[in-house]
């Protein structure tokens, strides 16, 4: 029996239910992100959903400059999760320019998205 929807939709359904879960390959045990049909490391086709610890480290960061009238500057970053995968996100709770590479961060779900705050 095939699953009810593809991995992307399964991810966002879990997120909407308040669960940040990522895939782990049953064959090679590596985690996978973004969600996929096949394991991009070993090609395996059994990918299981596991809770993400939420712990991460900022790998790189930028400040997108935007006029104050349009909402002002904001942070966009890449976070390496403790599980060994990387995702694009943002760090909330501090001025965008104060987000630094190497900063330890924790995930939370906000507006149906994963974002991070300083650990």
């Amino acid at each position, binding site marked *: 029996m095939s699953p009810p929807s593809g991995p*992307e939709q399964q991810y*966002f359904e879990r997120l909407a239910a308040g669960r940040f879960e990522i895939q782990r390959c049953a064959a090679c045990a590596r985690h996978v*992100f*973004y969600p996929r049909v096949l394991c991009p490391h070993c090609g395996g086709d059994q990918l299981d959903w596991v809770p993400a610890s939420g712990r991460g480290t900022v*790998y*790189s*960061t*930028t*400040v*997108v*400059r935007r006029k104050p009238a349009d909402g002002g500057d*904001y942070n*966009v*970053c*890449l976070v390496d999760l403790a599980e060994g995968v*990387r*995702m*694009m*996100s*943002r760090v909330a709770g501090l001025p965008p*320019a104060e987000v630094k*590479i*190497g900063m330890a961060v924790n995930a939370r779900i906000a507006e149906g*998205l994963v974002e991070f705050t300083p650990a």
Partner: protein
Amino acid sequence: MRGSVAIAGVGLAGCGEAPGWTEMEIAAAAAKNALADAGLSARDVDGIVIASTNIFMSGLALAEHLGIRPKFTESSMLGGSSFVGHLIPAALALNAGLCDTVLVAYGSNQRTGTGRAEAGRHKMALDPQPFEHPYKPFNPPSSYALAAARHMHQYGTTREQLAEIAVAARRWAQLNPEAFAREPLTADEVLKSRMISDPLTVRDCCLVTDGGGAYVITRAGRAGDFPKPSAYLLGAASAHWHRQISSMPDLTVTAATESGARAFAMAGLGPRDVDVLELYDAFTINTLLFLEDLGFCAKGEGGAFVAGGRIAPGGSLPVNTNGGGLSCVHPGMYGIFLLVEAVRQLRGEAGARQVKGAQVALAHGNGGVLSSQITALLGTKDTL
């Protein structure tokens, strides 16, 4: 493949501003110029190659506009690197005898065309990237900014060193009457100009212009048929490891390490053999990364390498001799302009910006966000 095909004609059109011209018209005008450069007409073309971010079935569209019924058509879309990448299928088709005369063309009215914002919204709807778009990166600059920031963190590269790249490109542009931005530019001005996505300012980013280019490529045995010396393909290779910046394995190392190695191997050459480099400089960080990844300096040393004017006119390594995407032209995709400039340098046609005695040119294309990396080596007849 080495030495089997050669570029017989090159042309540009609409570079800078071409108000009132459509994308296809600019491509066709560039094609006309390239064909004239080769002493040919559209009637002589039996292979059609193009790439477009906007035009669906672009190969059919170009052939229709020019009145050509091609035996070979190619429209792979790998981003701005496409036109360097197109050398490979063109060579394969020519060598297999599928066709005899291949025209590769590109055109864009990115600067003066209307409806860009709306087109952007349609594209996002057609091709959602739900793991990046919701965070609103200002792409492409934000992706390249993330790469620059990581390189600065890992290797101590500075904004001042990146600014030197913009200054060098501008100095080459000042020697090129066809370049769009030719006013003097200092490193200080680069640093103080408007920040787009930290650490990249507007002067760290390529221009937004109109423009088109084209080249005609044939089997090498026909080189004597054409009015100007042909530029021979010595090596070409393509590599890509990611599409989105969040999937790039290491933001400080591009797939140019792979494409360069394979292209050099095909040519039987190394970095020290290259007389002139055209590196796709959509952003200052690109030039730095490609100098490292193609083997012109060690990984992490790109900042020191470009300091002191090494890649500027008068320096020891001529890079982006037309002024590059940073100062010559950049209509959304730049790849074809790398090859047009490389050919002109090899023919000795580059006027005030001519690199004396240039025999081997390296053209390196970049597509997407440091995604598609395609390296080509061209040479004069003496390099065969």
